[in-house]
């Protein structure tokens, strides 16, 4: 037991990869066995994550469960893991969503083994980003996550999958190169890649490099980091890969893409950009805030204009993540005194919670889109209509999840968005006000979706269809979405259990 | 210099090859006269074995170390008994033996006793050339060799090509010979001596006399170079080579291209390095260096468009002589050793190559390179033997040619003639192109005729000796040969920077 506790993070990180290898190597023929094996392998990290949550001393600030081993001594890079409140919540989110996504993927019939193996590999990649405390290790897991997602979209996606997966990969990678260059520069100059050390020494580094002023170097470094993360979040205008990727990916792929992968970008902002470049972040925060606002508004507008259900949900991610970025901008402002620490902390708490919440609601939405798509083989909103009549349970769940997404008080979305707005208002009043407009349209598009899918006259096509293949959501899918719904409700009513943990970490970060 | 020394055993041992060859020639002639037509097929073998015996005997008995006359002039100062002579005689005898061997069974010449006798006489002339220490002996050896070779080149009377070859060789040779004789006589005139080793002093005096003396010496230098240039087929005295090589019976081509060239280089080394005073070195080195560069380049460039394999090898031989001239120009122990090594390599290699050609033309009647297509399938070992020979000529390890070129280029760089080394090196690449083309034709192209080529035992033996020899000389056992060459060079008394 002590061994487990000592190496908890490594276990959580690598058990999915182990599962992936096991699946590929063992000659299992039965699809069922493959599916349940994969599911089992994905549950173990979740259980361990819960243990982690329970053993985490949330009142203490700083990183816990640290593990350090030298890895690439030539470059002074070591295998350094650790979690604080922010990363812990992300770990929980990832380990929760993956089993659910796998459960949803039981409907995949082709090359099941490979699919499950890739999925587990993806989990390791994502978890790695959240738990690394060394820049190189961070980058490694950041990049590794691209590969399984590329293949998941490319092989099991929809009609336009090749274009979408290619764009996703190249776009993200192009951003990553800038990140890599910046990381190399920092690590080389300071002689270490360890994040904890760098947080101490890099911000106070004021020498010139290559004959270029220190200020310029830092500004360039800041932007390289920012762009890389901005592509991932995504921040407008770097978001164009997202609609295609999310839409073309298989259901579970979209769940994870929206649910976790986007959070990698936001996490990068919080974990790296703010501590390493506080002054530059403060300086450029207004730009970020404006972009965030545009994301909120444009995302909502774009969503509203879609006739493809999945694309609508995809754009909604842009909209929701905009709040995260807005809060980050506020947090940045606290470094030069333009925002009070309290506002910043509130906003950032909201941001992290929003990350968690959006993970839940986006996953749920994509899951539900997938449910209906599996049965009707169309995502065209105009072709739906009145499905409430034949699929009432589905309708109820869809309504519930949409409300959470919309930010209905009592559900989780409200709490996080409220915190963000509360924190941003004193700092970026105008921008926040305009973002409220976005919120208005959020409501609009959500209701539009609901209207088109559930209400209205029942489309005869589906009524006929229902007689042979039930349109109603089945038990497995309900089992997959239920935990999400429970959490949406719990967080909406009693967010303290998670907010407390996040708060300590955020305070430490911004302090 | 005494001219009335007693003829002791050691003096006789110093001329073992000459004595042996004379006796052997008489034996062969006798056999030819006494045996009936049908049973004369073995004459070549007798000649070959005889020469081999002489070779071994010479190595054992005729070496300078075996006698007390090391480094000394013998027989009235006509010959010098040193390692250089030993090593070149070995080359020449080896070439002679192998030439006889590969002539066995060849129509029109294989059964002719006179043919072998003349080969033996030519070998004798070359043996004299290797050891010559006197101007008269130089000329004597040269002429003995040359005349025999003229006859051999034109031996096949009813073949137009052969007759043309013999005649051309004769005309060219006689002309250049007489020019050289004039140069030699000028030297005698200036020095009052005919012994090579005694010339340096008087000539130096001549030089110090001023412009007239210098001019005279340079004139004689040029005239002598004409003669040597012809013998080694250096540019611009090379014009006879392609036609003569192509027309002569192929074993004779092999003989001319190897042994006669080798013996001439022995002479070159002695005459130039011992005779012409160091004050003249800049002039003659410049001249010979230019010749070397021109020879290499022209030889290689003209080889490129050739379609006949014998002509290709003729131009290749011209180029090879060019490389060897680099070693002469270097004027050092290393240079002389390099030349010696290179000639040894060259003898083995070229004979190997020509043996393959003999066999191929005998089987197919063709000397066209294009007809060699698919040889690797028809007769893999024959193709391999030719590959070994061509690659050695090109200078590719692990074959002897690589070591030889390395020694030569090292000598050039050491003598501060880096430009010459670079010219040589670039030429090697040009040459590689046409050698590789032949190899490509054998391996890549295919032919309709799949029948294997007949390889009689005598020829197989020759190929084994040459191929293995070339391989050995290029690898670990290269050392004994090189050491031998170094000993030979050091016996010449030159400045040298070696460990």
């Amino acid at each position: 037991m002590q061994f487990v506790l000592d190496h908890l993070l490594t276990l959580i990180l690598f058990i999915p990869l182990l599962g992936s290898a096991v699946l590929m190597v063992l000659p299992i023929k039965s699809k069922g066995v493959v599916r349940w094996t994969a599911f089992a392998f994905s549950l173990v990290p979740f259980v361990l994550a819960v243990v982690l949550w329970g053993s985490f001393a949330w009142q203490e600030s700083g990183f816990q469960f640290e593990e350090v081993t030298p890895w690439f001594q030539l470059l002074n890079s070591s295998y350094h893991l650790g979690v604080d409140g922010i990363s812990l919540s992300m770990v929980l989110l990832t380990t929760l969503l993956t089993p659910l996504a796998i459960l949803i993927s039981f409907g995949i019939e082709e090359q099941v083994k490979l699919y499950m193996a890739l999925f587990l590999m993806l989990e390791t990649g994502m978890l790695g980003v959240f738990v690394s405390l060394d820049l190189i290790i961070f980058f490694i897991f950041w990049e590794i996550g691209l590969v399984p997602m590329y293949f998941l979209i490319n092989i099991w996606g929809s009609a336009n999958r090749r274009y979408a997966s290619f764009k996703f990969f190249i776009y993200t990678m192009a951003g990553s190169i800038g990140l890599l260059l910046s990381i190399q520069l920092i690590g080389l100059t300071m002689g270490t890649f360890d994040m904890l050390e760098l947080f101490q020494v890099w911000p106070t580094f004021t020498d010139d490099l290559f004959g270029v002023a220190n200020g310029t170097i830092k500004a360039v470094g800041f932007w390289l980091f920012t762009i890389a993360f901005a592509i991932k979040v995504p921040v407008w205008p770097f978001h164009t890969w997202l609609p295609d990727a999310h839409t073309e990916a298989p259901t579970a792929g979209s769940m994870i893409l929206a649910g976790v992968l986007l959070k990698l970008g936001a996490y990068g902002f919080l974990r790296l950009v703010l501590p390493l470049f506080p002054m530059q972040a403060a300086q450029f925060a207004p730009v970020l805030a404006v972009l965030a606002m545009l994301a909120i508004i444009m995302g909502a507008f774009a969503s509203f204009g879609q006739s493809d259900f999945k694309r609508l949900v995809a754009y909604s991610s842009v909209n929701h993540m905009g709040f995260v970025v807005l809060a980050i901008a506020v947090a940045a402002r606290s470094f030069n005194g333009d925002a009070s620490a309290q506002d910043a902390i509130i906003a950032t708490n909201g941001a992290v919670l929003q990350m968690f919440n959006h993970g839940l609601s986006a996953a749920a939405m994509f899951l539900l889109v997938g449910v209906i798509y599996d049965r009707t083989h169309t995502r065209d909103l105009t072709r739906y209509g009145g499905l409430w009549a034949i699929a009432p349970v589905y309708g109820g769940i869809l309504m519930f999840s949409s409300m959470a997404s919309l930010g209905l008080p009592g559900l989780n979305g409200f709490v996080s968005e409220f915190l963000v707005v509360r924190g941003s208002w004193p700092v970026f009043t105008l921008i926040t006000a305009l973002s409220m407009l976005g919120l208005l349209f959020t409501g609009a598009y959500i209701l539009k979706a609901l209207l088109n899918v559930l209400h209205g006259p029942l489309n005869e096509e589906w009524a006929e269809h229902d007689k042979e293949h039930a349109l109603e959501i089945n038990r497995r899918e309900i089992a997959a979405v239920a935990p999400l719904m429970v959490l949406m409700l719990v967080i909406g009513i009693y967010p303290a259990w998670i907010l407390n943990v996040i708060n300590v970490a955020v305070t430490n970060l911004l302090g | 210099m005494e001219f009335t020394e007693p003829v002791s055993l050691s003096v006789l041992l110093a001329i073992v090859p000459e004595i042996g060859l004379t006796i052997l020639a008489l034996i062969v002639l006798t056999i030819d006269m006494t045996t009936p037509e049908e049973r004369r097929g073995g004459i070549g073998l007798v000649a070959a074995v005889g020469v081999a015996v002489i070779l071994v005997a010479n190595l054992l008995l005729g070496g300078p170390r075996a006698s007390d006359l090391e480094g000394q002039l013998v027989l009235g100062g006509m010959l010098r008994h040193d390692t250089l002579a030993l090593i070149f005689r070995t080359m020449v005898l080896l070439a002679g033996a192998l030439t006889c061997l590969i002539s066995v069974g060849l129509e029109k010449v294989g059964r002719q006793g006179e043919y072998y006798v003349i080969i033996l006489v030519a070998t004798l002339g070359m043996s004299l050339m290797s050891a010559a220490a006197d101007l008269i002996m130089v000329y004597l050896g040269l002429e003995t060799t040359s005349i025999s070779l003229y006859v051999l080149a034109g031996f096949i009377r009813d073949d137009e090509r052969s007759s043309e070859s013999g005649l051309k060789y004769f005309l060219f040779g006689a002309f250049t010979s007489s020019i050289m004789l004039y140069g030699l006589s000028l030297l005698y005139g200036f020095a009052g001596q005919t012994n090579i080793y005694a010339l340096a002093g008087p000539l130096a005096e001549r030089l110090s006399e001023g412009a007239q003396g210098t001019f005279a010496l340079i004139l004689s230098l040029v005239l002598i170079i004409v003669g040597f240039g012809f013998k080694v087929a250096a540019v611009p005295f090379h014009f006879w080579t392609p036609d003569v090589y192509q027309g002569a019976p192929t074993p004779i081509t092999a003989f001319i291209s190897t042994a006669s060239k080798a013996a001439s280089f022995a002479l070159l080394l002695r005459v130039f390095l011992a005779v012409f005073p160091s004050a003249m070195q800049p002039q003659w080195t410049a001249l010979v260096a230019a010749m070397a560069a021109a020879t290499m380049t022209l030889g290689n460039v003209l080889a490129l468009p050739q379609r006949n394999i014998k002509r290709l090898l003729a131009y290749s031989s011209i180029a090879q002589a060019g490389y060897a001239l680099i070693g002469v120009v270097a004027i050092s122990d290393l240079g002389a050793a390099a030349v010696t090594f290179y000639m040894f390599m060259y003898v083995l290699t070229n004979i190997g190559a020509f043996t393959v050609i003999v066999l191929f033309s005998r089987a197919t009647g063709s000397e066209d390179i294009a007809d060699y297509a698919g040889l690797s399938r028809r007769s893999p070992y024959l193709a391999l033997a030719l590959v070994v020979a061509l690659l050695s000529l090109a200078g590719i390890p692990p074959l002897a040619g690589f070591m030889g070129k390395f020694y030569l280029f090292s000598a050039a760089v050491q003598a501060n003639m880096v430009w010459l080394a670079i010219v040589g090196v670039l030429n090697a690449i040009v040459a590689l192109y046409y050698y590789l083309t032949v190899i490509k034709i054998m391996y890549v192209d295919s032919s309709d005729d799949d029948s294997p080529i007949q390889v009689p035992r005598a020829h197989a033996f020759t190929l084994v000796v040459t191929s293995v020899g070339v391989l050995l000389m290029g690898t670990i056992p290269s050392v004994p040969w090189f050491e031998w060459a170094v000993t030979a060079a050091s016996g010449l008394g030159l400045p040298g920077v070696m460990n």
Partner: protein
Amino acid sequence: MTIPFMTIILATPMVAAIIMLAFMKNEQPTPIKVLSAIATGISLAASIYVYVSYDVASAGFQFEEFAPWVPQLGVGYHLGVDGISAPMALLTGLASFTGVLISWGIDDRPREFFAFFMLLVAGVYGVFLALDLFLLFFFYELAIFPMYVLIATWGWKVTRVYASMKLTLYILVGSVIALVGVIAMVLVAEPAIGKLSFDVVDLMEARDAGAFDVPVMGAVTFARAWFPFIFLGFGVLAGVFPFHNWSPDGHVAAPSAVSMIHAGVLMKMGAYAALRVGVQMLPQGAATHLPWMVFLTLINVVYGSMIAMVQRDFKYVIGFSSVSHMGLVSMGFATQNLQGMTGAGMQMFSHGVMTALFFASVGMVYDRAHTRDIPSLGGMWTKMPTVAFAFIVGGLTSMGMPGLSGFVAELPILIGVWRAGSTIAPYYAVIAILAATGIVVTAAYVLRIVQLVFFGEFDESKFHDVGDVTALDKTALAILVAFLFLIGIFPALMAPMVASGMAPIVQVLGGA
């Protein structure tokens, strides 16, 4: 008695070649192939042993063997490995053994094919193991002719004659010019050490005594005058722009196993020789010239990847990709610091394995589909999943995906380039940025091939008799893939060793 590992590694293929030529017949190909596999296997095993037993802490030359050869000129049979050459020997072992495995299907004069292949392998080993410069040359040239014959005879009919001749002459020009330089070096070194010697140890002593810092033309020292010729002379074989032109045609024309050796090992031979003879012996020259040569390497990286992007022929993409990746090796050398140079050494290994993998896969596809035209292919994943997987792993390695050896090699190189921005000249920082863009282009063309060749629609009518690869093929691919992951996940298995070999060179450069 100490086992002479070096000689075993070197001699086993040569002995096998002789046995094959003398005793085996083309009508019975199996003994020939088995013998080849055994011979390369023995050399591979010995090189693994040497690699694993190398004492990184003491560094320096180990497993030395010496015998005099031509003492008059200071040439000796001196073999040994250090931290740089041990991985190279290992690489040769891997490429040659897997190359034999995937050539099992050769049926045209297999005896000659495998005999020349063995000679080629021996030549390449010799270059890496030689500690005498003449010996290095000897083996360098030894490898050239078998390469010619293998490509010209068993290569792709359309271009093999042209490509093989071009390749041979090109490489030879470079190397012989370098040879003249080496001879000059030896002669110049003589006064400093009191003897003529081609031995690497002796020449390093001469270098330390300042023998190569003597002026030869006015103020220009020997080192400065000769370095470009030696470095670029060998650099031809490493594919340094603008002397890379032989490489793509050569790669494409060669039969698969030969391409594996060619791109995988031969090009590394050139880089290694440039390092050992050029940089290590003439550090002053290196310090003067590398700062401008780095631009050539940058052109390699960027231009190579862009040309790879537009190729229609599958194999040409890989060929140009090699030109691009070798540019990173030379770039690493040009940084003159420990990170960059260690990265370069690791890239030599990583790229070697990766490109061997690529060419093996390409060969397998071509053998079955009889076309290499990217637009015509498609869906090969369905028929040969192992090959597709192997190719994808190789592709990810080439774009520097973490977890694979490409990343752990390219990372230190780029860091080294950054560092050179402070220690040598600020423009190195720009070079780092531009080189990194090459990575993105690489990703693009790799994905393009993966998508078009292995995924996509499988044309049943055109490729109806395309089947999966043999067990031997799969073994070969598995071995190569394993090493890509192994070094990628545990760089500590190679980085310290390479660093120990590069450290003395960096030291002399720093002092130079």
